[in-house]
């Protein structure tokens, strides 16, 4: 419980004399009680399960019994030893990186325009139009892409009836469809993180640069974008992490032959019932995502100073 103890009262009271010793003690015990329900919930629902998952990933798989037996690295050896699984990891990385890059290219102008719109009403509408899709859930958006991209979907029937194509073009159940679907899912996250950054930078620097003769593009690339770098980085990181872990979009839009990491976890746990291997894939996915996030943030820190 000592970690919860409230010391450093000065910062609480803004430098005024600290409250009396009894008050401090009361605060300490009340902090414990106030934090108890939420911490219990997270411990029981997340921390313990993740610990069990780590244990499961080093257990020996026995199809006959669900008991966790043995300590072995065979599941990890299997993952990194079979080209099939390395291919899935590589494909997941390629999809996540391409989605992040395209989200950046589309997200920067969108966020910039929203942050510079003068009409308050239009700005509210644009922000709502960004946030509402973000919270709409993946199932509904995947359904939207399916009706648009299917062989008999809206795009193909529109092209057919316009006489532009003779045969439906296969879009659904391809890698490009997954990338398109994921961009639509991730773009709002990028736009919403960048919008507040451009908003905070304000227009003063751009105006100063332009007053001194910089053309709009120069002002944007030499002044505004470098200032927005920390926000751009956190937006990219968010997109990358979410794309790495995407489930609904690859399953529904990519179809059974376009396999990515998160659907593999589900398949191994629920369809094959190989929990140790499912746990291994899940942890590899988390570890790869974490290592790349930390490495890229360190690299950027070196280049741009404190982020």
């Amino acid at each position: 419980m000592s970690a919860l103890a409230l010391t450093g009262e000065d910062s609480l009271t803004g430098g005024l004399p600290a409250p009396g010793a009894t008050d401090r003690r009361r605060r300490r015990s009340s902090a414990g009680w106030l934090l108890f329900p939420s911490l219990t919930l997270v411990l029981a629902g997340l921390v313990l399960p993740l610990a069990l998952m780590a244990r499961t990933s080093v257990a020996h798989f026995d199809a006959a019994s669900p008991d966790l037996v043995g300590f072995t690295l065979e599941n990890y050896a299997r993952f990194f030893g079979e080209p099939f699984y390395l291919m899935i990891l590589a494909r997941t990385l390629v999809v996540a990186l391409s989605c992040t890059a395209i989200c950046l290219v589309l997200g920067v102008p969108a966020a910039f325009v929203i942050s510079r719109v003068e009409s308050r009403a239009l700005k509210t509408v644009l922000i709502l139009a960004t946030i509402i899709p973000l919270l709409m859930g993946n199932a509904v958006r995947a359904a939207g892409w399916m009706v648009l991209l299917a062989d008999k979907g809206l795009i193909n029937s529109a092209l057919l009836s316009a006489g532009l194509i003779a045969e439906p073009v296969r879009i659904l159940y391809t890698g490009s469809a997954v990338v398109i679907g994921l961009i639509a899912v991730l773009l709002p996250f990028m736009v919403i993180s960048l919008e507040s950054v451009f908003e905070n930078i304000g227009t003063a620097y751009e105006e100063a640069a332009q007053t001194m003769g910089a053309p709009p593009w120069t002002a944007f690339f030499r002044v505004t974008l470098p200032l927005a770098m920390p926000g751009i980085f956190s937006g990219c990181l968010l997109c990358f992490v979410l794309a790495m872990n995407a489930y609904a979009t690859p399953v529904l839009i990519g179809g059974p032959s376009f396999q990515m990491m998160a659907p593999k976890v589900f398949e191994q746990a629920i369809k094959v019932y190989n929990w140790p291997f499912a746990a291994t894939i899940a942890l590899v996915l988390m570890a790869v995502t974490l290592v790349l996030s930390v490495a890229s943030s360190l690299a950027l820190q070196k280049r741009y100073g404190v982020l």
Partner: protein
Amino acid sequence: MAGTRSPSPRSLSDGSFRPVMVGGCVAAFVMVLSPLVAIVWISFFENKIISFPPTGYTLDWYRAAAAMPQFRDGFVTSLKLGVVATLVSLIAGVPAALVLARGRFPGREAIQSLLLAPLIVPGIVAGAALYMFLIEVELASGVQVAMTFWGLALAHSLIALPWTVRLVTASLVGLDPQLKEAALTMGARPLTAFRLVTWPLIRPGVVAGALFAFIASFVDLEKSLFLVGPGVTTLPIVIVNYLEWSIDPTIAAVATVQIAVISAGLVLTDRYFKLARAF
């Protein structure tokens, strides 16, 4: 620096800045909004097999969807789960936010990260882990939890918790802790001080937190995937299962109902609490 006047990408002319930026913005919104517009539009198509242009418009698919028990049950289960998860996340999250907003203390960062962790750990990983954990609990105790309503309720409470913690904490940032101390010094009982001083200040955050918590629970797919069972299936999972077999205006009608529920909730939230502050 004599060369500052030369534009960095030489090929871009000065006049192209605005059109390119606005064009990118329009392209971004087309990408984001087109699946939603398409699904709403198709839900009114008269023909069962999607073709363009439609032969006519009808509301029949909404009637057809409402008559299908799997969608009705899924909707009711998601609604019940959303309410339970929101209540649990408020009971657990509001007191925690009050402590976090008191200011710096040792371990504060760690506790905050722990409480926001359910937002960061990928849904599929957290769902798989919780599923394995609940099966182990079941093996040890003999009580079935996985694939029951209460197993799902635990998962959904965790989905909801970070939102209440985050939004209530956000509504308390910058709040002077001395306000409450002043009330206490002047003889108010702790409960009275809470009711008259703290509560009015956190109310917008609590309302927004509750609405966000409900929405996050209602639309969740990945975490619930492992935990649903016969008789307890959430609406997003019913939608996904249906989509694996067919794409037709009936599923578009179901999706449109979900879009309407969520949009109404968010527009309502925005009146209490500027949505952009939640991110």
